[in-house]
């Protein structure tokens, strides 16, 4: 096997991130570290921009297909904008003496390690390599979340670690079973663990073993995807971890796991002796959507609230993937892209709002538009986009999913509709308390944090502008790109 593949053009993006992690672990100054973090994230994004032209390349370890290239690009983009947010976050935390300077070195190194792990998992061809990459990212995420060293943060970190740890161990068991199932079709050795060889030979795999492997891989990676009933780690992690960590976690962790589930679905669907993978995935998705939609009503903590909205959106994507077919997968990938961008924006805004108000409950944050017009409007736009109201893009993707459901599985559209409406309703209710009404007082204690200016909000605007554009008028090449992804995924 060639570890050298990481140096090929396809491996450039994860390589950048891993290199940055190593450098950051050695740089003692947190100021320099924060800037290196931004520079490395930009470089990583540039490297990821190359990926769409590399589609079809790869070797035994790396595979660049359209979907992987698309998601890697998305992950690198969100990591880049979040690193910009992280810069001001770190400055404010240091100024407020809420964080130990030495710990920031760990923070920056883990940030890059997490992003690198996620990119590698997306681009990996080999299930074993995917597993190792997800494991790396999980460990990095647990360390990131525990950064605050408060008891709540430690507990959240431990919860993430143990629940996701059990999940990924089960996924590894599933990987071994999948290898065993692919053995008669592909023959022994590395190819029987590679997507690029298993997918074309899916029809000749051992069906019963494939079923067993599917169950373990689904349970394992559904934990990482935060699907109900394996979502227990999500809310604590998002609420207690540093806000930049919440933003990148919301963006990438779920997408990686959903990518694996989608590919697995393709293999199962192509095998006549295996069970139909659609219903279990759809059931998990619907359950997540419904539970999240109703949990939204009970949350007092803003970050916890948006953690549940992430679970709900992950559920919608899983449902679309479970439904299958070009239209639903088109909508699912679009939905995944858009909600990643919106959640990153919203978490970045919420982090700034929590800093401004000195608290992260709904009681602390209110009336943002009256006090800080530009900032409040930006957050309001983010929440409207998340509620899938037009003119934002999520409306289009949800419309496509609902339409396809009505056509092909009419009964499932009832819980789907209830979940979508209840979730959107909760979001709009909270929008009113967060952004409208009388403003709550800003924090008085030093340092006097100012409302974010245009420079600070620029990445959020960029993200929301993309979401708006994809909602109003999707450019032709983008449609072709998404159609090709959906066509290839089957």
């Amino acid at each position, binding site marked *: *096997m060639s570890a050298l593949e990481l140096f090929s053009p396809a491996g450039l993006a994860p390589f950048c991130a891993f290199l940055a992690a190593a450098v950051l672990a050695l740089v003692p100054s947190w100021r320099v570290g924060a800037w290196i973090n931004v520079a490395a994230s930009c470089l990583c994004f540039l490297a990821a921009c190359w990926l769409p032209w590399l589609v079809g390349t790869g070797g035994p370890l790396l595979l660049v297909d359209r979907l992987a290239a698309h998601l890697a690009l998305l992950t690198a983009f969100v990591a880049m904008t979040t690193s910009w947010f992280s810069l001001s976050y770190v400055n404010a935390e240091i100024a*407020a*003496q*809420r*964080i*130990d300077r030495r710990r920031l070195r760990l923070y920056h190194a883990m940030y890059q390690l997490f992003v690198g792990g996620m990119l590698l998992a997306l681009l990996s061809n*080999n299930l*074993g390599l995917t*597993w*190792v990459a997800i*494991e790396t990212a999980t*460990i990095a995420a*647990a360390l990131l979340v525990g950064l*605050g*060293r*408060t*008891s709540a*943060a*430690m*507990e959240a*970190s*431990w919860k993430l*670690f*143990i629940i996701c*740890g*059990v999940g*990924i*161990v*089960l996924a*590894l*068991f599933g990987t*071994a*079973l999948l*290898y*065993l199932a692919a053995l008669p079709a592909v023959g*022994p*050795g*590395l190819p*029987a*663990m590679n997507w690029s060889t298993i997918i074309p030979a899916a029809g000749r795999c*051992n069906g*019963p*073993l494939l079923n*067993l492997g599917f169950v373990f891989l689904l349970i394992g990676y559904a934990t990482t995807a935060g699907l109900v009933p394996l979502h227990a780690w999500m809310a604590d992690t998002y609420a*207690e*971890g*540093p*806000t930049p960590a919440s933003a990148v976690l919301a963006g990438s962790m779920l997408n990686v796991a959903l990518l694996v589930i989608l590919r697995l679905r393709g293999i199962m669907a192509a095998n006549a002796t295996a069970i139909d993978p659609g219903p279990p995935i759809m059931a998990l998705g619907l359950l997540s959507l419904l539970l999240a939609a109703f949990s939204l009503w009970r949350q007092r903590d803003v*970050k916890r609230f948006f953690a549940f909205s992430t679970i709900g959106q992950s559920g919608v994507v899983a449902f679309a993937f479970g439904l299958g077919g070009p239209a639903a997968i088109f909508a699912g990938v679009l939905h995944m892209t858009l909600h990643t961008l919106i959640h990153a924006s919203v978490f970045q805004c919420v982090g700034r709002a*929590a*800093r401004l108000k*000195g*608290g*992260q409950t709904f009681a602390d944050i209110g009336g943002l538009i009256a006090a800080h017009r530009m900032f409040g409007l930006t957050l309001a736009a983010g929440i409207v986009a998340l509620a899938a109201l037009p003119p934002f893009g999520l409306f289009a993707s949800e419309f496509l999913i609902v339409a396809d459901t009505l056509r092909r599985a009419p009964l499932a559209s009832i819980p789907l509709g209830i979940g979508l409406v209840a979730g959107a309703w909760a979001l709009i209710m909270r929008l009113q308390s967060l952004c409208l009404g009388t403003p709550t007082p800003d924090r008085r204690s030093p340092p006097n944090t100012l409302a974010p200016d245009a420079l600070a909000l620029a990445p959020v605007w960029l993200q929301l502008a993309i979401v708006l554009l994809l909602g109003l008028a999707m450019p032709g090449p983008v449609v072709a790109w998404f159609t090709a992804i959906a066509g290839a995924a089957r």
Partner: protein
Amino acid sequence: MHASPTFGVLAHDVAHLLGGAMLVLSFVLLYQRRLTAMIHVYALQSLVLAAAAAWQGWAQGATPLYLVALIALAAKGIAIPIALRRILDRANIRREIETALGIFPSIILGLALVALAILVVPPGALRESLAFALSVVLLGMLTMIARRNALAQVIGFLSLENGLILAAVGIEGMPLVAELSIAVLVLLACVVCGVCFFRIRERFDSLDVSHLDRAGEAHR
């Protein structure tokens, strides 16, 4: 279990014997109420795993499996149990642990899980070894669920992972098995470090280190 074509072949018989021993130790882990005893049983299970991996390495003629056996012997059989014992000695925690599930119900549930494992594994050359491994995995999960104590849950997790490695070594010609074994070991080391961190702070009667950052209470 039906008589498989591999029955009577020495390589498979010894592998099944070792797998069966691991399964029995999983049951012992399930009803054990004392933390020290749980650690010892885990160490013993890891040693059996090391023997199983070494045996498979010899039977399959696969050198990487000796590395897996070495990891199981040195890290899981010796280092991790010693680390857990030291955590236990240093932290002043009660040795008797609360169980969320009584002994009888957990044994019955464990038997049901073994039956389930035998039922779901499709017939084939590897049926027995897969069923053993799957049972160990499921019993590890049950141990995690049946205990309230964090350390006991961690031991359940460690034992679950032993089942995983047992499955991996039983599959002939499985690629990357040594690499994956090392990667899993990293995960286990992190778990043990995490426990260590928790225990040390529990000794100060509080999980909270608010003396480090009192200002950070309300805000993150």
